């Protein structure tokens, strides 16, 4: 019985290590470039931002409007609903050089772009 318990513990430890290894990819281990945006009156401020290539990016979006917005980008492959008067954090992988557009999925007029170089 104790052998079984010991084996279970070892398996649990191995699973924990594997999960931890999978959970922290090399890109996330790097220091992320933090981009702070505000969202008010249905617009991103600023709506043009830039970041260095091959480094992860973290968007911090403060929604100052009285209704929720959804930060979304097909090219960044992320989406997140940010509730009214609150802040949302979106982690993005290390990016290759290029232009990545983002928008509020609830408001077609709210657009912005990230330039990575």
């Amino acid at each position, binding site marked *: 019985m104790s052998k079984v318990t010991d084996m279970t513990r070892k398996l649990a430890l191995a699973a924990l290590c594997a999960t931890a290894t999978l959970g922290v990819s090399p890109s996330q281990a790097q220091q992320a470039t933090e981009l702070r945006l505000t969202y008010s009156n249905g617009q991103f401020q600023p709506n043009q931002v830039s970041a260095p290539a091959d480094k992860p990016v973290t968007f911090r979006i403060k929604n100052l409007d009285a209704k929720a917005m959804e930060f*979304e*980008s*097909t*090219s*960044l*492959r*992320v*989406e*997140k609903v940010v509730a009214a008067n609150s802040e949302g954090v979106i982690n*993005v*992988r290390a*990016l*290759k*050089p*290029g*232009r*990545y*557009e983002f*928008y509020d*999925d609830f408001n077609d007029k709210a657009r912005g772009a990230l330039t990575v170089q």
Partner: protein
Amino acid sequence: MRARILSRFHSIALCVIAGISGYGSAARAEDASSWRDIETKYIFGFTTGSGIGLEGEKEFTVDSIGRFGKRDGNYAATETKYEFEFTPSQFIQIEFGALGSTHNIGGVTDLDDRNQVALAGGFAEFRYLALERTSNNPLAVTLAVEPTVRRIDETSGERVRNFEFETTVNADLELMRNRLYAGFNLLYEPEVTQMLTGETQREATFGGSAALSFRLASNVVLGGEVWYLRHYDAANLTSFTGDAVMLGPTLYLRFTPKMFMTAAWNAQVWGREIGNPVSLNLAEFQRHRAKLKFAWEF
């Protein structure tokens, strides 16, 4: 039954055409540079694009494929996927669900007459984005595997135990920014089927497709695709039994930011059966196939 299914497809096609004509006038006034990037996975019909969705996105879809027409008699079979898909990371997409099927077969050589609706099995799909598109690189490539278990044979509707392992490479190319896309698939689909008699059949389908899709309006994409498929009576592609070319139009229509549909129709335009000097390959493939998919994102 077949007439009912075809009539349903015709009614949906008419609604879609009416919808497109409404969108057409809007399209002329729109500037494609102001459109949002499009998710390419579903814009090529039976050909699958490279898209894997957005991290955190979940989707429920109902995806029906109908196959119609054999050499003789009446043949109509459908298989519907009731599917849940989600994107846990910016590189991986996972899908799984149940399969439902219908078979309406009468007077077809080598197939028993049948009129049935059944829960046919289940499937899962794992997709990995191997090469991502950027504003500097128009090509994107995704690798996908889809294990499927069936208790109802796809073609005959008989009770069986079928295990299939579809492997695909889904690539697409943005030819004109926000307007014109080319899609390419490479398919290898080995399967093993155990009949109730105890007999075991091994077979495989190998082939590829090319598709071209034009974004008429921000939410309407029209296109065409061609498939070349080869069938083997062995998983290792050694016993070739015939091949076929399927050709037809495709449509993608987004109703709201969170809801869309895709439709496609392919007709067999060329085919051959090894050892049977007839035109078309209707032993392993069908005369027509149609696809209709509705999706809700949340």
